């Protein structure tokens, strides 16, 4: 995959390569912003916890 990429970029003009760099950076930013923080549910499969959290209703 990387070898193919290296071959491909050799064919690009300088301006195009810079544009590709910017495109990759934009995508990296996009990817970084796509990461979602995992919030552990308060109630897990532990029954003791279930009892204590009775009022955390769905409403």
């Amino acid at each position, binding site marked *: 995959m990387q070898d193919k990429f290296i071959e491909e970029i050799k064919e690009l003009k300088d301006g195009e390569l810079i544009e590709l*760099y910017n495109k*990759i950076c934009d*995508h990296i930013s996009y990817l970084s912003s796509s990461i979602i923080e995992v919030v552990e549910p308060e109630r897990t499969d532990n029954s003791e916890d279930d009892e204590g959290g009775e009022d955390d209703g769905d409403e």
Partner: protein
Amino acid sequence: MMETNKIEEISVSTIINIDKSHIEDFIMETDEGTKMYREKFKTEAILKRNKYVNDQLTLFGEYKKIVIEELKIRYDRLMPKDKTEAYDEEKLQEDKLLESLILNTNSSVSFRLGLAYIVASITEETTLEKLNEYISDFIDKFKSYGITLGIDDFKYTMFTEKYMNFFLTDSSPESMKSVFESIYFTCPNLKLQLKLNLINIISKYEKELTVYLEGLKKGVNSTDGDIVEKYVSFRYALGNKIATDEFYNATMFLQETRKINDYLDGSATRKKNYDGFVLNADYDNLDQVAKNSFNSAMMGLYLTLNELKKYYKYEFIIKDLLKRYKEKDAAKANFQAKKKELDKADKDRLSILKDYERAKGIGFFAKKDDVKIKNLELKMNEHIKVIDQLYSEYFDLEITNNLNQLNESSTIFDIFLISLTSFEFLVKQFSSEDFLQNTLKENIIEYLRFIYNPNNSVLRKTNALVDFNITNIISEKYKLLDLVLEEESINKDNIDSTLDSVRYVNLIQNIERSTISLNDIKNLCEMKKIIYVDNE
């Protein structure tokens, strides 16, 4: 459009598109099952999606590295070579040519051989250490001409003889300090006497110095043409090489002295600077023939305005000489009379010296007479002041008299050349505060470089002995070439801002004449930012 297509064809672009739809379409929630199931589903979906994103981040981090490596290779390949060392060598050659050119000017022998600089360095402010250094340089220079100066050459006054007697036997600082102090009380103007002594030596050996100078000229003038032409064409070629040098021009943008985006086709700054000189204020609307003639005129204007700016610096010399020109006829007779007066004063000096020797008991029937000795010493001190004053009047008349060499068709350039015929005139001109940051020699070299500038066509063509208005001449000339150039825009107050705009256009023209394009420089700037700033 082309660029976008080509990038779209690259496998990475496909991956980017897949990534986006994959991430956006990732099923994160389900309506099925219990609340606990739904939450669990969501958490697992997030973890799964995050894993995918992280894998892609690693992958694209690798792609980024590969692109940076390729950009580094291309930056090094595209970056022009620094030719400073080669230019420095050529500048040395240019300096040597200027030295040869000076040998061929119509200035005095002492100016051409550099002796005049040593003499002019001795002033009332000169320290004892410097004074001795200058005398040493003077003696050494004569030695290089094959003339060994001895005590007989320094018997200008009884005081110079005494001082130089010590100097020639033991010139150690301690010894010279005590000699100077011992003479100083009877001769407070010893420095002046030594200075006049050196002038006297130059005059005494004028014939030998001229022979030596002619030998030097033969050596440098050789076979390949006139030295002025040689200097001018060498300097023109070097100036042109430096102006179009790809490394220097790219560096201006890489170091951000100038912003590349302001120079690219279509930029507002570029349009403003170009349109400001175009008759209909729209460069883009000119046809190719008109564009070519505009560009050629702008190149000429750039050189002319640089010449004009330098001219303003030295205009006071022209003004002074034109004022003197009106007195040139009277100066002719006065100059001859002053020369005779000076010769007579020199003879009187010699007779004071002769009387002094007799008063010291030297010669037939001479008897030592201490009172007479004292009186003659005083007389000499007073007489030296007279000679100094006569020299000052003589040099003042000399430059005015030299203006008789001009004729009705003489140009501003010719007048500048006349200024070189009197070194003392130049010393006076360059003693003002404006020139104090440089040495006299540096000021005169810069002045010579101005006079022999390959591009000073206006000075060479403008008749100086009729009323002339240089800004009007220049402005009219370029109006004829269809440029917008108001007289006021190039007067002393406004020339800098006009020159800035012309310089802007000139830089683009120089880049277009070189092997690097503005687009290449733009790429270099962006590559540099990526390689050295973003990823340091």
